Structure formats: structure tokens, C-alpha cells
């Protein structure tokens, strides 16, 4: 298999299959799920059977159907947060690189400040005051995560801004908007795409961890992290219930990482040829 003339590694092919299946399931959850996610269909903690492949949960709901619906929340939420953090990070990173001077200094020091402590711990401090409503989660994580996007976007843009064609654009009198959208952005797309994959994995794991700790997605909404929490205690009675949502999280992140790994290897090879 090849994409744009690059040979796709076996692991990347596995990754693409995993990610596509997950996206498909998230998009078409109501059509795929065999049962409704919220209605009890049998006894609590019934064992897996031909009808209910993964068994039933504490309220007698079909675990497989809940997993399928949970994909929507987990993947959708992470995509929204990652997109928002890219919007903030790329705009401010490019602004810092193109404008330079005090704007660059101010933004960079602010980001240093935010990165001076572990993200999870800082998120705890904010959530302890604001609670875990969805908009709070989205903005808190997006802003904390955008610091990392900012660093990459800024360093990528600074390298591009120092090249001759940007100098030429400046000399012929183009404005900064032209320079950012027409000169910097097209050249920054490959490294930023790989970073999007990485940041998605990070956000996905982060929101799942918060939900697992009971500080993320709140009932009646459920994502995979909060399902792990709900089913957690059953593990001591020999049930594998928490392993299903936790495994779903693990598989998607491994798949996405396989793709990112492959993209990064093409990128570094491409740079090697240029040098």
C-alpha cells in the first residue's frame, strides 16, 4: 500500500484500519449498536452470551452497546478539544513567530509558566473550583494542551520565516496575513499533521483519565473512561468488564500512534534528503 508515493508500513496499515473502524463506529453508533445504551435488557452483571457478546452491566444494560455509544463521547470530545487547542496554539504560535519582539516574549513566557507544572495537577486545581461541566472540560484541556501546540507551531514558523521566499514576500510588500496564510501555513502542514495525531492521543488519554477518576464526563453521559470507573470494582469478583472500555481506549491510541510514528519517520526521511 502507498499513500502519495510513500510506502505505508505494516504497523501504519494496522493503525489506519483501527482508526477508521473507530471513527465509523462513533459516527454510526445508533445503527450499529444491537441494543439501546440506556435501557436495561436483562439481569445485572449477566455473563456474556450469544445475544450480549460482552454481557450486561450493573443496571442490566448491554455493555457492547454502551461501548459503541461511548465511542461517540470519547472520540468526539477529544476531536473537539484537539481542534480547539490547535486553533489557539497555531494562531498564537504563528503570531509569535511572525511578529517577534514583545509579542513573542509575552506569549512564550506565558507558555513557560503554564508548562512549569504537570498538566493533570493543574487541571485538578481548576476543576476543583469550576466543577466538571463539559464546556469547562473542553476549554481547560484545550488551553492547557495548546501550550504544546504553540511551542511546535512557533518553532516551525520561525524556521520558515527565516527562508528566502518569505523575505521576498516581505520585500514585495505583502502583509502579515498573506505571509502567514500563503507562505508559512502550507509549509507547516506536514509537521503539524503529525502533531495533531500526537495531541489527539494525549487529549484522548487525558479526558479518559479524568473520567476514570470521576472528574471528567459526568453521568448520565458516559465515555470509555467513566465506564472503566463504573465497572472497576467488578474486577475483584472475576469479571472482565472494566477491561473492555480500557482495552478500547488502548487499542485506539496504539492505532493512532502507529500512524503518527509512520508520519514522523517519513518526515525525518524527507528532511534527511533535503540536507
Amino acid at each position, binding site marked *: 500500500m502507498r499513500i502519495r508515493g510513500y510506502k505505508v508500513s505494516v*504497523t501504519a496499515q494496522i493503525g489506519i484500519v483501527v482508526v477508521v473502524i473507530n471513527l465509523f463506529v462513533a459516527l454510526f453508533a445508533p445503527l450499529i449498536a444491537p441494543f439501546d445504551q440506556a435501557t436495561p435488557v436483562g439481569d445485572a452483571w449477566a455473563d456474556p452470551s450469544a445475544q450480549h457478546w460482552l454481557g450486561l452491566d450493573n443496571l442490566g444494560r448491554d455493555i457492547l452497546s454502551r461501548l459503541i455509544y461511548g465511542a461517540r463521547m470519547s472520540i468526539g470530545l477529544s476531536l473537539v478539544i484537539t481542534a480547539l487547542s490547535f486553533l489557539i496554539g497555531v494562531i498564537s504560535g504563528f503570531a509569535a513567530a511572525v511578529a517577534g519582539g514583545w509579542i513573542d516574549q509575552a506569549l512564550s513566557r506565558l507558555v513557560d*509558566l503554564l508548562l512549569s507544572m504537570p498538566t493533570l495537577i493543574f487541571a485538578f486545581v481548576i476543576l476543583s473550583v469550576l466543577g466538571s461541566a463539559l464546556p469547562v472540560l473542553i476549554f481547560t484541556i484545550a488551553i492547557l494542551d495548546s501550550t504544546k501546540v504553540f511551542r511546535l507551531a512557533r518553532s516551525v514558523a520561525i524556521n520558515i520565516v527565516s527562508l528566502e521566499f518569505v523575505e521576498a514576500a516581505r520585500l514585495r510588500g505583502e502583509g502579515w496575513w498573506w505571509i502567514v496564510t500563503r507562505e508559512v501555513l502550507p509549509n507547516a502542514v506536514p509537521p503539524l499533521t503529525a502533531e495533531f495525531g500526537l495531541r489527539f492521543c494525549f487529549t484522548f488519554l487525558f479526558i479518559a483519565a479524568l473520567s476514570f477518576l470521576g472528574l471528567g464526563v459526568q453521568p448520565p453521559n458516559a465515555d470509555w473512561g467513566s465506564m472503566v470507573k463504573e465497572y472497576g470494582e467488578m474486577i*475483584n469478583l*472475576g469479571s472482565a468488564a472494566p477491561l473492555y472500555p480500557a482495552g478500547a481506549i488502548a487499542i485506539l491510541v496504539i492505532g493512532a500512534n502507529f500512524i503518527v510514528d509512520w508520519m514522523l519517520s517519513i518526515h525525518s526521511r524527507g528532511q534527511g534528503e533535503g540536507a
Partner: protein
Amino acid sequence: MLNLVLQRLGLGVLTLFAASILIFIGTEILPGDLASAILQNSATPESLAKLRLDLGLDRPAILRFFDWLFGVLHGDFGHSLANGRDVLTEIAPRFANTMFLAAYAAIVAVPLAIGLGLLAAIRQGGVFDRLVNVFTLMTISVPEYFLAYLLIKYVAVDLGWFPSLANVTPETSFIDRLYYAFLPMVTLVLVIVAHMMRMTRASVLSVMASPYIEMAILKGLRKSRIVVRHALPNALAPIISVVALNLAYLIVGVVIVETVFVYPGLGQLMVDEVSKHDVPVVQACGLIFAATFILLNMTADILAILSNPRLRQPR
């Protein structure tokens, strides 16, 4: 070199100060104020006014910040909003438990990672090397609770070798602690060992490309001797910083592992208090976590400066 070390120390103190500002601001930038956030729907005008007075919210934020920081420097973290107990006496035993678990994991993980990393470097390109690569990518992707529940299901429940709950008490003896905390320790080791191993391998291999190593090969030395005696000393600086980075990560990873195994550490306490909106305890825990994180990063940089032979001569 002394200058560099002093500079790094100064930067560390500055970062710590910045983190304390951040933790304080995190509870300040709100619609409304802390009192209404804590009481939420149960707020009446009287209870709000009382809580505001208790929290000292009638005074400007900057004064309260320095009061808080001054108190912290004297070991006074304030009182819990949930039960009124002194925060320090609440968190001190928890912190000791967390440090015990983190140290336990570090003592196992660091030698294991460096040993396996060297082995992968010696057998570069072999089956073992490639297995290590895939394994690393997997453990980086897999969440801690997945590994933890796997261990509980198969090692604790099915085999019955270790307890699935690590609820140690102050009376628990040292040997029992090692036993109770075994599965939490293994989970943490699995999470951090792969990354350290991969970095050890990478930094040894990058040194292996230098001419003096070629010289050693031409002298006919054994590969293992070249890697351990010739390459390792020069590859040490990046390895040290990766080890410290992972130990700093341990401090965060511990939060989830403690929750899974109901281990009475600082992380578990912090999670509980976040959902109770107990801000003074959350701030104190946050500051301790942040301080440990910053301290470890600083130690890494200073060790890297000290271990770099090129910085030993004064310029």
C-alpha cells in the same frame, strides 16, 4: 560550571514561585468567587457571606496570595474546608505513602530500563531490538488503569499471588508494604520502563556512531565492552535527563494507580478533594506535586551539567 549550576538552581526557585502563582490564580479566575463555587446551588446570602469571611475573600487577591505563600513556607497550609482539620497533618502521611510507592517503582524500573536499553543497543537490529520497539510504543499508548486491571484480573484474582487492594495503614510493616504495593509498583514500572529503555538505546547508539568507537572496534574489543565502557559514559547525560523526566512522570502516574488500587497516597486524596471542592487541600497537594516535579527536572539538568565532561573546565 558552578555558575551554570547556580543559574539552574535560581531558575528552579523562580519556576517554583511561578507554579505557586499559577495554583493560586487557578482558584481565582472565576465567574463569581470561590465561595459561590464551593457552595454552588446550596448558597444562601448568609452562608455565602460567612464563607467569604472564613476564606478571607474580603481582602485583595495579592495580599491573600502572599499570606498563603508565607504560610506554606512555614508549613502552614491552612485548614480543610470539608472537615476543618489542619491540611499539613492530613497530607503528611499520604505524601510519605506516595513517595514510598514512587521510590519502590523507581528502584526497580531504572536499573531494569538501563540494562535492557544497553542490551537492545548491543543487539541492534536483532529480534530483541525490534520487539523492544513495538513493546515501547504499546506501553506508551496503553493507559495505566488498563495495565492495572489486567494485573488485578490475572495476577491478583485468578492466580491469587498478590492482593488487589493496597490499603496499607500506618501499622503495616515494611515487608508487608512491599507485598501490598507490589502490583501498583509493577503497573508504574511497566508504564515508565519502556520510554527510559528506548532513550538509553538511542543515546548509546548515537555515541556508537562516533570515530573513537570505530577505533575501539578496530582494536578488536568485544561489542559489550565497547558499549558499556566506551559508549555509556558519554551517553549518560541524556539518559539521566530521561530518567528524571520519567520519575517526574511517575509523580503524576501515581494518581491513577493509587485510585485503582485504593492506595492511601497523596494522589488519591487530591482526587477525592477535587470532587468535594476542598480548595485548600487541593492547592496544597497541587503545590507538593508541582514542587516534586520541578525539583526532579532541576536535578536532571544539574546532573546533566555535572556529568558533561566538556563543561568541567572553566572557560
